[in-house]
């Protein structure tokens, strides 16, 4: 397998990042470790969004719904049926996959902003359904889960993140990944070249939902609690912000995006910049500023700095219709 210079740099960078993440617990308190675990959760969630939107070009804002499905799977299995938490993760992935395929099928008929808004509506509808069928889901009071130390959560989250990252990387390098990118760049061309559109588009949804489901499971474990509000409007919006700030169509931007949405608001609060009431104001302003200054996200900035001059990145942006002017 020929390894390009870009890939070699990428692998080295990945190893460096992995080592940093592995060593961080030595310097952080238990509370900060659970924050670190949340960053891991967002990492996985944003990655899932990237697969269906950044790589396959189908705008899905419904990751919150799949996270909810995965999270509730874990919660119900551990709380009501006494399962071991880690064992529920693969189940959550499977359930998520099924849900993703179910969503992906009608999505075949929709495009662009209509798809975006429908998936957004799904993300908001699912928590409401959870609220409604409370005997099953614990309703608004929610379900409690066994607690774990910050370190356990951190390790679990990042090991999961690592596994998901490697699997995604392999997937995207392979045949499925090429098919996804073909679908994103031109559905017409892809279909004419024999790419079975419905299969790959639905597959993208399924995989992305499976990953989001796992993210939801870990999220629920980190909070050791689940209720519908955990997976509300804010979550879906933050995942989207994280994905774009990080840079769509790039696996690297994901970590920047995850850190941005979780750590910045937290950092603003703890730094006592001003009253806690002003944190959302500042965060919102920063998001706008970031969009004005780095429209294509951190990954694009990194690319330009390092001059990888990757044509593929440009074509990503242009095929999403998201190139900068």
């Amino acid at each position, binding site marked *: 397998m020929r390894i390009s210079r870009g890939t070699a740099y990428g692998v080295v960078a990945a190893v460096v990042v992995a080592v940093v993440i592995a060593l961080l617990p030595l310097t952080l308190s238990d509370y900060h470790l659970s924050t670190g675990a949340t960053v891991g959760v967002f990492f996985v969630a944003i990655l899932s969004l990237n697969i269906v939107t950044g790589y396959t070009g189908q705008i899905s804002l419904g990751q919150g719904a799949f996270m909810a499905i995965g999270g509730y799977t874990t919660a119900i299995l551990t709380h009501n049926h006494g399962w071991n938490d880690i064992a529920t993760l693969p189940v959550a992935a499977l359930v998520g996959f099924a849900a993703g395929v179910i969503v992906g099928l009608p999505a075949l*008929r929709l495009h662009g902003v*209509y798809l975006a808004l429908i998936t957004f509506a799904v993300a908001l509808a699912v928590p409401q*359904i959870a609220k409604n069928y409370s005997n099953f889901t614990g309703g608004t009071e929610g379900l409690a889960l066994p607690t774990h130390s910050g370190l356990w959560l951190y390790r679990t989250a990042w090991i999961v993140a690592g596994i998901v990252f490697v699997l995604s990387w392999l997937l995207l390098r392979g045949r499925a990944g090429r098919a996804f990118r073909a679908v994103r760049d031109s559905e017409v*061309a892809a279909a004419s070249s024999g790419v079975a559109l419905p299969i790959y588009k639905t597959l993208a949804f399924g995989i992305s939902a499976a990953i989001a489901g796992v993210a939801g499971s870990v999220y629920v474990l980190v909070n050791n609690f689940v209720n519908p509000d955990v997976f509300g409007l804010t979550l879906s919006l933050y995942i989207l912000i994280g994905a774009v700030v990080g840079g769509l169509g790039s696996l690297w931007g994901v970590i920047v995006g995850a850190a941005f949405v979780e750590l910045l608001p937290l950092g603003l609060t703890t730094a006592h910049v001003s009253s806690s009431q002003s944190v959302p*104001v500042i965060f919102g302003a920063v998001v706008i500023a970031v969009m004005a200054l780095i429209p294509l996200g951190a990954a694009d900035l990194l690319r330009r700095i390092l001059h990888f001059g990757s044509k593929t990145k440009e074509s990503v942006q242009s095929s999403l219709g998201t190139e900068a002017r």
Partner: protein
Amino acid sequence: MTAISLFQRTTWRPSSSWIVPLAILGGVVFLVIGSLRSSLFAQQTVSGLANGGVYASLAVALVLIYRATEVINFAQGAIATFTTYIAWQLIDWGLTYWLAFACTLGIAFAGGFALELVAIRPVERRGNVLTVVIASIGLLILVEGAIGWIWGNQVKFMPAPFPARIYHLGGVAFSLQDLGTIAISIASVFVLWLFFQFTKIGLAMRAAAVRPAAARLVGIRVSWMLSLGWGLAAMLGAVAGMLAAASPSVLLQPSMMDGILIYAFAAAVVGGLESPAGAVIGALAIGVLLNLLGSYVSWVTPQLLLPAAFVLMLAVLLVKPSGLFGRTRVRRV
């Protein structure tokens, strides 16, 4: 040249379908017959229309901006809430309700105009549609945070514009509040329509929205038209917000319009995102349908209303993927 672009402009073709108007006519007939036969039905229809009126104002605001820029303004609801708080503040300082209403409209216009200049234009300059959408989400967070910062998070009491009077007509009780809400929301959308159809600036805005490049060639300053559009959208949002806050079931708090925004999205999508008329029809339909569902179908609890709206959206989109009045896109492989 790509087939999947995030928000692709469709090629124009004249609409030829008679199915949609027929379906709407059928719906209206159904509502009228039902209202004549059952007073509960009539009451729920009217209050559903009132809810729909609120959604309609916000939905038209969304369509206004979308038509011109292909951007879904996620902050539209929050801006509406902010302007409603301004109205509350003016009333708190002693203005009469309608005077505060009028002032708020003016302030909303200026505010929307300024927001476009300060927050959106810098992003639009170098970014693309998705970037601006994220900026609007940032704006949403900012504005809701600003409301909490300035006025606090406790619920405020917004006086009602209409005295709590009930009219009786053929055994049915209609509240003045509901009737007034319907009247005001329809009136504001109508006035806006007049503006777009019969004024020079309105025509220029329409031209800038559909063909910005051609509009520049006749001397239209397209970017100012955009700012104007945001100003008008903010005004409509203010109407929606003030009408919503007047309703007894809605509380004036920073997250007041969050749920309503979703219904407005649904209405705009159902109507076809580029059609203000479609948004109004979609909004009224959603308002009425959800109300009737809630009253007549026992297992539809208040929490299931939002999922119900989603099912409605999906049903419409599966049949007409670009909404009832949206432009159909043909993609052959």
